[in-house]
Structures are given as C-alpha cells and as structure tokens.
C-alpha cells in the first residue's frame, strides 16, 4: 500500500482551478513534485485507509441500525413511541457537533486525534449496547454514536483533502465515499446473516452487537495504524511553505507565507459563503429518500416492505458511481458536477411522480438517486476544502455539511406538510419545479468557486 507520509500536497500556488490545474505542481521540492506527479494518479494511502476506516465503521453502525427497530419493538417489547424517539435521536443528533469537531480539529491542528476520538466514541457506544435494555439508556447510546459521527466528519474529510493533489480531489473523495457506501451495504446484510444463523431471542441480537463492536474496533485500528499522524511540525511546514512560495514566485506568494493559523476570518471568505448559501438553497429543495421511497410505494411500483432494499439499491448505485463521477468532477469542475447532481435529482422527482408505478421507474429512481449522491456528497466536501485555507479546512467542510444536513431536515418537514395538503405527485413535481428554478441560481452562486482559496501549507 502506498502511503503518503505527508498530509498535504504543499502546493503554495493558488492551487489552480480544477479545470486548469492539470500539471501545475510546485517545483520547490523535487522529491515532492516527482511523487505527486507520479502518485497523484494513484489513490493516496491516507484516502484508502480512511476509506477502510469508514467501511468498517459503517458496517458497525448500519448493522445495528438495520436491526434496531426489531430489537426495540420485538425483543425489548417497547411500543412505537419509544422506537420513534430513539429513531429521532438517530436522525438529528450529529449536526451541531459537526462544526465543533471541525473547529477543534483545525484549532488543535490534529485532525487524526479528533477523528480518532469521534470513531472511538461511536465504538464505545457499541460496547454499551450489550448491557442496555431500557429506552432511556438506549437513547443515550444512540446519541453517543451520533455524537461520535458528528465529531469525526470534518477532520476526516480535511485529511482526505490534505492528502490529495487539487486535481485529484474529486476522485479521492469518490474513492472514500465508495468504500464508505460499501460498508453501508454490507452492514445490514451481515446483520441479517448473523440473525438467521443464531436462534431466536436476545442471543441473536447480542451476536449482531458483537459483530458491530468487532467492526468498530477494526475501523479504529485502521485509523490508528494506517493513517499517518501529522507528518510534519508547524515550523517545518512554514519553512516549506515559504520556500514553495518563493520558488513559485509569481502567483500570490503573500497568501501562502503567513503561518497557518485558525482564524474566524478564514470562514468569512466570499467563496465559502457562496458555497454555504448554494448548498443550503439546494438542500431546502432536496426531499428525503424516505419520502421518495414512499411515493414509489404509494404509486404501486414496489411494496412498502421492500423499503430496506430500496436503500440498498440507492447505495449500490452510489457505490458504483462515486469514483467515476468524482473523476468527472476533477475534469469538468466540481461546482458544475454539484449543480448537475441536482439536475439529476429533478429527473428523479419527475420519474418518481410520473412512472413510479412501474418497476422500471423504480429502478430508474434508485439509479438517479445514487447518481445524485455520487455527484454531491463527496463533491461538496471537495468544494468546501477548496473554499477555505487548509488551516480552516475541517471547519469549512463541517460547516457546509451541516448546512446541507440542516436544510434537508427543514425540507423534509416542509415536504411532509406539502404532501398532506396536496397529492404526493403534485407535491413532488412542485418541489422538482422549485429545484429546477433554484439550480441556475446555485450555479451562479458557485461561479466564484472556480478559483480556489490559496492553500497555505498545513
């Protein structure tokens, strides 16, 4: 496995826009240049390692998520109200912690430590599942897991961005998300495999919890052992940054020279603001998957009982498309792909509202939805990492991810209401129309992101 010992490409050039960046490699350090030139094509080991960490962690969390409704209602004998509460915690808890995790990571300059704590807290919550049988305790355990998830997202994505040459950013995020999604597909399959192998009752569920613990520990081990610590101290980084800048000469050397330091000012950058605004606008018109599946079920294309399979279908498409679309984003521009992803989403709405009654329509919706995720989830992190200096990267990424999460939350509540007031197809087409109108606005907002923020050395 090739593992980059360095966190960042150390490019002090204004890193170039995705479209024109090809071949712009800092010349100050021959070794580095040679390696990034040659290895840029390869997926950095850090990205693979973080991808594997996510794969194991997703196996751990999705295995439990898949069986939790049954465990709570059928095994613990609790009513739907209790389950709904636990589920709600699952959905909402991590948003606010995310920004905090990003800020902490940037501030301390130790993304791996913060990410490790995040993964560690989630792993700890898996251990606590074993002795816990009451609603209150179970809710606490679930909240703990989400807390850990919130904490780790920012630093993890910042590490991915740090390990990537700018022209491979989209591809590398794609690789990470593909591995992550593979875990999300494998988790439920393994969980139900274990349940069917073990006799009924509590023992089977405990076996799934043990599987979940083992997967979480494996994920932690990959993070701890295969992801390098910050390979370079601050002082050295500054010297190199200065050297890079000096060698590069022409393009905005000033921006790179100041030592990396976390500043609120970094977040006030126009580009980050535009991205936050665009992401929130698009998020507000993004209907949750759950609703889309319900539209399909109501249209008669597929039974309600196949809900879990719909999620697997979407994830499979996401898995297949994450890397190719990431590459595409590197070639034609990430902002363009992000916007294009939402055009695909409009198509998904239209297909669901019009041909959801046919199985072909159902498959098309799942494929389009997977395509939408491939074109947005990793890409938005790649964009965010370009919109802020490296020293504020984790905070920037976490802020944008939180904006997306919160706006989608608002959207789901709003769509639920719209659904009740009109018919489901009408509601979906209305949101689709609004999204189609919002796309050009977002595209305009995102125009500024063609030129990334100068990346100081990290």
């Amino acid at each position, binding site marked *: 496995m090739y593992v980059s010992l360095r966190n960042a490409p150390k490019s002090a050039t204004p890193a170039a826009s995705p479209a024109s960046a090809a071949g712009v490699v800092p010349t100050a350090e021959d070794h580095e240049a040679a390696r990034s030139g040659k290895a840029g094509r390869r997926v950095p080991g850090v990205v693979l390692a973080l991808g594997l960490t996510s794969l194991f962690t997703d196996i751990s969390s999705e295995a439990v998520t898949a069986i939790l409704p049954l465990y709570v209602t059928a095994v613990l004998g609790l009513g739907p109200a209790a389950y709904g509460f636990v589920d709600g915690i699952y959905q909402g808890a991590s948003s606010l912690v995310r920004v905090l995790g990003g800020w902490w990571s940037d501030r301390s300059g130790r993304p791996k430590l913060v990410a490790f704590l995040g993964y560690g807290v989630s792993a700890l919550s898996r251990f606590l599942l074993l002795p816990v049988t009451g609603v209150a305790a179970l809710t606490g355990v679930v909240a703990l897991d989400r807390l850990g998830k919130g904490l780790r997202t920012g630093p993890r994505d910042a590490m991915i961005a740090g390990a990537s040459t700018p022209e491979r950013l989209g591809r590398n995020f794609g690789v990470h998300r593909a591995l992550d999604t593979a875990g999300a597909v494998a988790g439920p399959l393994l969980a139900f495999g274990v349940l069917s192998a073990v006799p009924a009752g*509590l023992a089977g569920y405990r076996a799934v919890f043990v599987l979940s613990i083992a997967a979480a520990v494996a994920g932690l081990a990959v993070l701890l052992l295969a992801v390098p610590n910050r390979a370079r101290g601050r002082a050295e980084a500054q010297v190199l940054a200065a050297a890079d800048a000096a060698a590069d000469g022409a393009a905005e050397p000033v921006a790179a020279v100041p030592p990396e330091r976390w500043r609120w000012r970094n977040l006030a950058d126009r580009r980050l603001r535009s991205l936050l605004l665009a992401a929130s606008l698009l998020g507000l018109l993004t209907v949750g998957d759950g609703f889309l599946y319900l539209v399909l079920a109501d249209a008669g294309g597929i039974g309600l009982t196949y809900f879990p399979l719909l999620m697997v279908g979407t994830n499979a498409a996401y898995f297949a498309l994450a890397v190719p679309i990431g590459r595409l984003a590197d070639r034609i521009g990430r902002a363009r792909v992000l916007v294009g992803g939402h055009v695909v989403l409009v198509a998904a709405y239209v297909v669901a509202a019009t041909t959801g009654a046919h199985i072909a329509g159902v498959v098309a919706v799942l494929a389009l939805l997977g395509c939408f995720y491939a074109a947005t989830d990793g890409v938005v992190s790649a964009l965010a990492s370009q919109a802020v200096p490296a020293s504020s990267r984790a905070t920037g990424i976490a802020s944008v991810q939180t904006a997306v999460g919160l706006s989608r939350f608002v959207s789901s509540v709003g769509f639920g209401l719209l659904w009740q007031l009109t018919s489901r197809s009408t509601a979906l087409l209305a949101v689709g129309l609004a999204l189609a109108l919002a796309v050009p606005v977002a595209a305009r907002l995102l125009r500024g992101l063609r030129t990334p923020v100068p990346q100081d050395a990290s």
Partner: protein
Amino acid sequence: MTRGRLAVLGLVIAACVALTVVYVLQVRQAGEVRAATAPPVATVPMAGVLAAPHVVFRNTTLGTDYGKLAAVPLSDTTGPRALGSISCERVYATRSAGVCVTSSGGMAPTYAVDALDADLTKTSSAALAGLPSRARMSVDGRLVSTTTFISGHSYASSSFSTATVIRVEGKALSNLESWTTLLPDGQRLVAADRNFWGVTFAPDDDTFYATAASGGTTWLVRGSIKERTMRALRTDAECPSLSPDGRHVAYKKRLGNPTPGVWRLATLDLTTGAETLLAETRNVDDQMEWLDDSTVLYGMPRAGTEATTSDVWRVPADGSGTPTVLVPNASSPAVVTASATVPAATQTPLSSTTTPKE
C-alpha cells in the same frame, strides 16, 4: 506505513473477524445445546384447553417454541400450556376466532395478519405494512383492528407514524387517519402528523375506543365505525381497553411532560369520569386485557439480560392489591371465558387490501 504497522493492523483485523465468527458459532451451538437439553415446555393438547375458559398468548419461553401462539386454562395458568403451530408477534382471540400478527425477518421483513378460526388454526392471511404493534378483536370476532408502525412516514422528526386499520368481517376499512376526529374544543383534528393506535371494541360492533395523537399530545377517543367519527375524551390516555361490562376503560396514562416511554396504568370509570391509578408502579408499555370486570392483565418484559422473556401480570382494576404474575413466559394475553361453542359462522377470509397512511 511500515511493515510492522501493517502486520499489527492485519493481526487486529484478523482477531476482530475471528472473534465475531467464534462468538456467533458459539452462541449458535449454545442455542442448539440448550434446545436439545432443555426440558421441553410441558404441553397439553390445544383442544382440551380451548374447551374451558382460557388465556391465549404468545409463548416467550426461550427455545424452539419462542414466539409460538399458546394457551393455558384459566384454572391453571402456570401449569402446562398448549402450543399452536404458528408464530405471532401479537395475538388476540375470542371464543369464535383469533388474529395473529406475524413477521418474517430479513432484509425486507414482511408482516401479515392471519385470521384464525375457533381452533386457533390459520384460515387466511393478508399483508400488513410496518412493524406489528397491537391487535384486537370485538367479542364476536367480526371486527379486527391492527396497529402497525411505519418508520418511513416520518423521515426527519423525532416522531413515528402508525397505520391503524379496522377490518369488518375481513374487509379493511380506510385508515383511521382519514376519519373525522373532533377534539375536546370541538375543532377537527387535521394536523398532518395525526396518528391513531390501540383500538378496543364495544360489544355493539360500532363503538370503539382508541388513541389519537398529534404533536406532543395524545387523546383517548371514542369512535363510531358507522359514522367514521371519533371524539376526544381526555388527554394522556393511551392504548385503551374496554372492560367486559363496558363500564371502565383501562389505559396507559402518560406521565408529565412528553417523555416517551414513561407510563402508569390507570382505569377510567366511564359513568363518573373518575380515574384510578393502579397498584402497578413499573413502566408498562402494553395494551391491557381484562381478566374479568375487576382485574386487568398486561405483558411485562423481564429486567436486564432476560428482556426477551416477558410475563403476563395481573393487578386489580380499582388501584388496590399488588401485581402478581398470572402466566409466566408469556405476552400479548387474550382472555376467553366462554368455551368455543359458538359455531365459527362469522369467519370470513381477510381481504388482501391494506390501507397504509395517506
């Protein structure tokens, strides 16, 4: 990454995989050994039990018969039990018919409601959407109500959605959410998040009681099937159960602020409106069943690692006494006091239509 680190990582992952596999195999074998060596549940023939007053329930004795439909005579509720051939998540029965809500696990779990005849054998089956939660029948077996719980309905909020369907002689009526519900102030409940669950029928085959919920509030409602209308009687009373004489309703009283999952059992005198808290002080999440006009039954999971096993408890309906176990290793009780002498003429196959939430 150094060779040494890679080796350590490989070892850790191999250990994790090995641990899981060994654990699963060990649990599997332990289960097989227990099933082979455990004294079999003492059983008696079903026909004999059904001939006298009895309790129908879901067997929760760990082992191969876990989840099976079962029955014991009221004269000896802790003695040998009769086991049916089908497994149920919830079960209910009257002297002429029964209903069994089933689930099959797996990636795409499927749920169904099975109609049972007087011998508790399956006669027909209809698909059901969502996790089974409650099942009830009218005394004559004509009306069947099921509540299932569909998480997909509420994607984003800390709430849940139920689908409660009443079937009349097997034919599903529309979801209760599409019926008219009048709140105590005379307003109609039209909130998008309204939910209904836990139906109990009166002997007239028209009146029923149920729980309505919207936002953080839950109401006890009295409804009319003919008029497709429900009226709220009081708040914070969930999962009602009407006494055989029709004079009391037993329910879970929600305590204090909307802290989900904290209830206290209570009964309501329908003529005086007086509410009585029962002697059971533990948190019970079940729809009660009346043993007679003065005693209620409910299922209660055991504590800690025995949580998969539950017992059916009894407690006086007037707040006196202390709870005692009526049927060990049981849940979802249904009391059948008259013998199965009524011919199963009211049996009709369940229609295959279900009505999920609009």
